[in-house]
């Protein structure tokens, strides 16, 4: 089952380059994490601050949307285009998101109509 596996020995220079590369990538992930914490903090603070609900609700939903895209693409590595069948993965996950949106629209409009 692992017949496709190709193992190669990296040279010391290549090894050190890869190591530095993944270290730099990890630093980026920590920055992404800081952004997520910041967005969460803004969402909670804006609710506590007591702005009108009609203004705050869309804003915190937008913040949640940004945070989820960060999770999917940075933490869950969708940004890595070398992932096997990344297009199929994206098609499925965004289709799931689209279905979620139709549920939301249906349940907020039809159920209490009239």
């Amino acid at each position, binding site marked *: 089952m692992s017949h*496709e596996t190709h*193992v190669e020995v990296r040279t010391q220079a290549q090894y050190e380059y890869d190591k530095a590369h993944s270290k730099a990538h990890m630093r980026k992930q920590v920055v992404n994490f800081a952004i997520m914490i910041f967005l969460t903090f803004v969402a909670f603070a804006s609710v506590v601050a007591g702005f009108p609900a009609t203004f705050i609700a869309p804003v915190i939903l937008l913040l*949640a949307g940004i945070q989820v895209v960060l999770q999917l693409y940075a933490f869950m590595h969708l940004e890595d285009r070398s992932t096997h069948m990344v297009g199929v993965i994206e098609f499925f996950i965004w289709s799931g998101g689209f279905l979620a949106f139709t549920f939301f629209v249906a349940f907020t409009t039809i159920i209490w109509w009239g």
Partner: protein
Amino acid sequence: MDLNQKFTPQTWPKHPEQATLEGKNKIVGLWIFLASDTVLFASVFATYIALKDHGPAGMTFAAKDLYELPLAFIMTMLLLTSSLTSVYAMYHMKNYNYSGVRTWMGITVLLGLGFLALEIYEFQHYVHIGFGYTQSAFSSAFFTLVGMHGIHVIIGLIWISGLIFRNSKRGLNLYNAPKFFAASLYWHFIDVVWVFIFTVVYLMGVLG
């Protein structure tokens, strides 16, 4: 090639989780499962939104007076941090540092346990003040949605700790690297769902 082949940092593949066909298929399969899980959560979210603050006449509990933001904030921080610690575990996996993988996965489990303890406390508190599962349509929808997420957390904790124990003496190889990676993807997804729960349930609940 033997799946249990030993590696050195120099021979360890750049993408160990996708170096075998099994690993590749496992990741795609897990993502398709996560897409279906999205639909499952969408249905309980939509139900919650439709039934929020609805119930029998004279119902005493409304979302506005029920939720406590400090608790929701601490739970959010715990889960968000556990997401970062599993990213650290995957970073160490890339560098063929198995003790790093184990340590950071272990911290992820501890943070997840902290989250779960707070959630159990919260549910217990609600039931204690009379807001039980059968109290109203609102309470049923709330416990179904947040409880569904809690069950996912429990499954994730069993999954990750099972991986740590089962592979404690094996060391990293191409057999268990995709397993750790899949568990970490699942754990991130739990965080994705929680982002919507703290926004839609707790923050928009307090907004009224």
